[in-house]
């Protein structure tokens, strides 16, 4: 008797499971699930503003927030990988524009959306350099929503005064290193502040751009520049010297800690992407007075870019809804709503600078005129696998300061990447 009850119970549970799996597979859904890692702070505020614009442009569709928080996106990427694996893609997902998309393209998980670029005239409003970097075999797979600049020096003029250094930027890395030496002699313990692994990769990439120039730097990623050539060796020398002027507790810190050292006057310089602007704003600092910014010495006229973008996954439910979302993301209104809140700049070049803050105006200006190169530390230049291998090599260098070993590891990382393709 009891046994029969048990079996009945078990089958009820089993039924419930199958019913659960079979639910909501309808094709005529109005839901658009947008998968991001924008879960709090200025990123959440930006997303909210973008959603408001989306609801205005497409009142018949229903936005569903699929944000996964934590780990600067690495949690979200792992969740996404398993969802794509199980053929259960969201309507659209956030991904760094550029090489990070290659993994998805190779696995045939996202669709070509060049047609949308034609339809909405995006080929004319996004800069040519950017379109070139986004194009893979003549196809474009994502719409950039916002752009950040990575090669920015943030400096505290008060601290610079201690070593009689003016507010004009150094003209190249050698002069920059002289300045660091002067600061050290003037009693500044940390002339250049830096934080954990990826911020070191970030510094290395700007040094590479400075020593190689934009063309050869881009060549590193398509195989036309050698990783053990004389320019790279010179860059590694510069990088090692720069690292010797940084705080010894770098591995213990994350980027806000390093940026805060400049805000608090404990360090003179910090090299960080322009999301640091939000940290200066939060501390009520005034651009041009309490802090100054300029491109990393040697990279003037180069815009080291990274961008978030949205995709059209293969097998997305409600493909029309996804296209509507992409249209809003690419529209002038959508980009304005999002970027003013997030503190980045729009990927479109037809933005009105007057809508943005003081620092952002300079970024918009350079974005329009400078050569655009892809950032390594932020997924634009190399696949996730490649940039992880480089990050591990740079982290190892932070502990052992072995230049030869670093170059070997960089060469090997590039070779491994070639092998896969």
């Amino acid at each position, binding site marked *: 008797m009891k*046994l029969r009850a*048990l079996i009945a119970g078990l089958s009820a549970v089993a039924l419930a499971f199958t019913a659960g799996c079979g639910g909501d597979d309808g094709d005529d859904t109005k839901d658009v699930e947008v998968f991001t890692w924008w879960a709090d702070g200025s990123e959440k505020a930006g997303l909210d503003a973008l959603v408001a614009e989306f609801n205005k442009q497409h009142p018949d569709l229903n936005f569903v927030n699929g944000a996964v928080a934590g780990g600067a996106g*690495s949690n979200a*990427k*792992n969740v996404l*990988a398993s969802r*794509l*694996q199980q053929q259960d893609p969201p309507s659209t997902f956030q991904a760094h524009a550029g090489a990070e998309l290659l*993994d998805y393209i*190779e*696995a045939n998980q996202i669709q070509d959306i060049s047609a949308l670029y034609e339809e909405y005239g995006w080929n004319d409003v996004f800069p040519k350099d950017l379109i070139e970097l986004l194009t893979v075999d003549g196809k474009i797979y994502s719409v950039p929503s916002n752009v950040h600049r990575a090669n920015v020096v943030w400096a505290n003029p008060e601290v610079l005064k201690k070593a009689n250094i003016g507010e004009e930027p150094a003209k190249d890395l050698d002069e920059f290193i002289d300045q660091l030496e002067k600061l050290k002699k003037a009693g500044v*313990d*940390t002339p250049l502040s830096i934080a*954990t*692994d*990826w911020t070191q990769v970030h510094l290395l990439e700007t040094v590479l751009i400075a020593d190689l120039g934009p063309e050869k730097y881009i060549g590193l990623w398509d195989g036309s520049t050698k990783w053990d050539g004389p320019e790279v060796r010179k860059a590694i020398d510069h990088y090692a010297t720069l690292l010797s002027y940084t*705080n*010894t*507790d770098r*591995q*213990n810190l994350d980027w806000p800690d390093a940026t805060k050292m400049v805000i608090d006057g404990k360090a003179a310089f910090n090299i960080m992407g322009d999301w640091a602007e939000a940290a200066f704003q939060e501390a009520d600092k005034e651009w041009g007075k309490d802090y100054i910014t300029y491109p990393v010495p040697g990279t003037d006229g180069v815009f080291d870019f990274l961008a978030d973008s949205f995709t059209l996954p293969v097998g997305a439910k409600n493909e029309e809804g996804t296209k509507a979302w992409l249209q809003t993301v690419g529209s002038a209104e959508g980009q304005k709503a999002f970027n003013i809140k997030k503190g980045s700049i729009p990927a479109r070049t037809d933005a009105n600078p007057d809508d943005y803050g003081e620092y952002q105006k300079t970024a918009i200006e350079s974005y329009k005129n400078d050569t655009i190169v892809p950032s390594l530390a932020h997924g634009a230049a190399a696949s*996730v*696998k490649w940039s*992880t*291998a480089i*990050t*591990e090599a740079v*982290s*190892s260098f*932070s*502990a*052992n300061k072995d230049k030869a070993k670093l170059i070997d590891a960089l060469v090997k990382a590039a070779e491994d990447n070639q092998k*896969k393709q």
Partner: protein
Amino acid sequence: MFTRIRSWGPPVLLIAPTLILLGIFVYGLIGAGVWTSLTDNVRGQTTGTVGLENYENLFNDDTFVYSLRNVAMYTGAFVAGTLFFGFLWAWLLERGARGEGIFRAVYLFPMAVSFVASGVVWRWLLNSNTGEQASGLNRLLDMVGLGFLQGQWWTHEGWGILAIAMPAIWQLSGYVMALFLAGFRGIPEELREAARVDGATEWQLYRHVLFPQLSPVALSAVIIIGHMSLKVFDLIMAVAGQTNYTTQVPGTQMWLKYTSGEWAEAAAIGTVLLLVVAVLIVPYLISTYRAERRR
């Protein structure tokens, strides 16, 4: 026929749900993991098996070998440290220290804190700045005049991993103490009295009467702490982060490989880890099984 089913049917039915669940979610998935490690699976895309190539790659990879060395050092320090402090505290309490209940709670309490929570605090305590800008432990050492003890902690390439063992020892020593305390309590008072009557010195009493009685407890402690230690992941993620070189262990390597899409290599690391833990656990299981049979 029917009576036989009646006799073994109900027990089988009763254990069937757990057997099925374990079969699928533990042994089935172990099988799937091992299988994945033999393929060229990248982000779920695979073209077939590649034999032991992933394992070859792993053992030719300096970073992975370094991570194995790290986990071996970490396990040594972690096991030795917790056994030492655990035994010391248990011994002190057993000798009738006043306020035993309070001390027991005080020592056992760190175990209630998660590795992630304590890791965040230890990340700050183990700041590697020295001299003027020192903070955390280095600052403390400086203040009490032990400045020469300041160190790089976990950022040191050779010994860094031992710094991670410090929070782990701090957290688990109380647990080992509880194990030993239970061991001490399990030894009948008559045994000690008999030894004393026979004229044993205090040392002889410990050496020949108490230690042999405590050795099964010590073995359990080694097994429990040892297998926890080999699988270390959360503590390192909280203290040092995933890509930090000096604290790489197989757990973090597996996560990194998985994140960068190398699912097959990640599975291979998981399999290596399983084998290493098995080397520790299986002999223990066999010996307890034999001991139970003998009884």
